[in-house]
């Protein structure tokens, strides 16, 4: 299957531009395979992040035709024979070179709430064969989050507020409040109840659209708004 890859190029000290690479890949290939073909056959200076090739590490996120994608699981056949795929680095993150961004905005944000998705193995199951822990009526596995940062890239608020906690942090915070696991939830409430926290979200749901897994960060932020809002109302009337 023949494709043209129009790849964003940037080397420190030079002006950004696009280079177009014609590649021939099998119909079963994914976009990452096509980029690797261009790197392998045509230009060894193309820089891009990748590791696992199966949507597990979350390191290869980028834009294909202006939409956030994990190229390792984005089939080239979705774009058709002879298509030109415009490949850009993720938005809202500093570009180190070509398609490789400085991903520290992702990890700095997750560190703010204590890296909640790093956790011990447990027997919690979603198939209903085992009872949920006491106090939980339902749960969504936030551990689906790959920390790929595609939601940060897609979020329009991130384009103007570098201090915005962002969808992945707020979704993780909502997950923590639903299942605190011993963390200081007052600190989490203080963090998210802020002008750069949950109230900065303007509900465009681009994060949910961009998320390659079933994290639904936009929906989680709405649940978080409800939690924080109800808490403020209770506090206003003298409640805890």
């Amino acid at each position, binding site marked *: 299957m023949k494709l043209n890859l129009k790849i964003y190029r940037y080397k420190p000290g030079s002006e950004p531009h696009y280079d177009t690479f014609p590649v021939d890949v099998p119909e079963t290939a994914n976009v990452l395979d096509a980029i690797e073909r261009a790197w392998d056959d045509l230009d060894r200076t193309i820089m891009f992040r990748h590791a696992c090739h199966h949507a597990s590490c979350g390191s290869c996120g980028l834009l294909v035709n202006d939409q956030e994608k994990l190229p390792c699981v984005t089939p080239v056949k979705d774009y058709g024979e002879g298509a030109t795929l415009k490949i850009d680095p993720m938005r809202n993150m500093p570009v180190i070179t070509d398609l490789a961004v400085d991903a520290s905005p992702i990890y700095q944000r997750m560190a703010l709430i204590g890296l909640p998705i790093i956790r011990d193995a447990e027997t919690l199951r979603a198939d209903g064969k085992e009872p949920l822990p006491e106090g939980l009526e339902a749960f969504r596995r936030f551990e689906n989050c790959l920390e790929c940062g595609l939601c940060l890239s897609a979020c329009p608020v991130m384009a103007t507020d570098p201090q915005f906690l962002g969808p992945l942090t707020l979704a993780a915070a909502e997950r923590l409040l639903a299942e605190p696991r011993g963390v200081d939830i007052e600190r989490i409430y203080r963090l998210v109840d802020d002008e750069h926290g949950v109230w900065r979200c303007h509900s465009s*749901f681009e994060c949910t659209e961009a998320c390659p897994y079933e994290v639904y960060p936009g929906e989680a932020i709405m649940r978080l708004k409800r939690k924080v809002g109800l808490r403020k109302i209770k506090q206003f009337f003298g409640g805890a």
Partner: protein
Amino acid sequence: MEVKPKPVQRKPLEWFNLKGKRVGFWAYVVMRLSAVGLVLYLFLHLVILSQLAVGPAAWDNFVALAKSPAVLLLDVVLIIGILAHGLNGIRLTLIGFGLGVPRQKLMLWIGLILTLVFGVLSALAIFAETK
């Protein structure tokens, strides 16, 4: 050698960059544009009302202008802006309270359809008056 990344350029115009965006973002853009339009209209409205203080002739001149097709078309745009902003505002309020979140996209389409239906009905009513 230290490599300095290309910094992120924070551009408010990115709020209006529709490339690759989906329906929720379109609603986000419409919300902002309609808000700016409605604020401008409020000030325009106050300026127009001030004609009453100038005298009957000034007001009569404005009324004659207000009946021109171009201004009536602006009235239709105003009504569509109010409907789009108000109905999406109700949607955002509901989902902000965690109500109907799984159906937020359906609510968006319902709001859009109601905006179009009532926008067209308003246009028909306004221009029927001029015949």
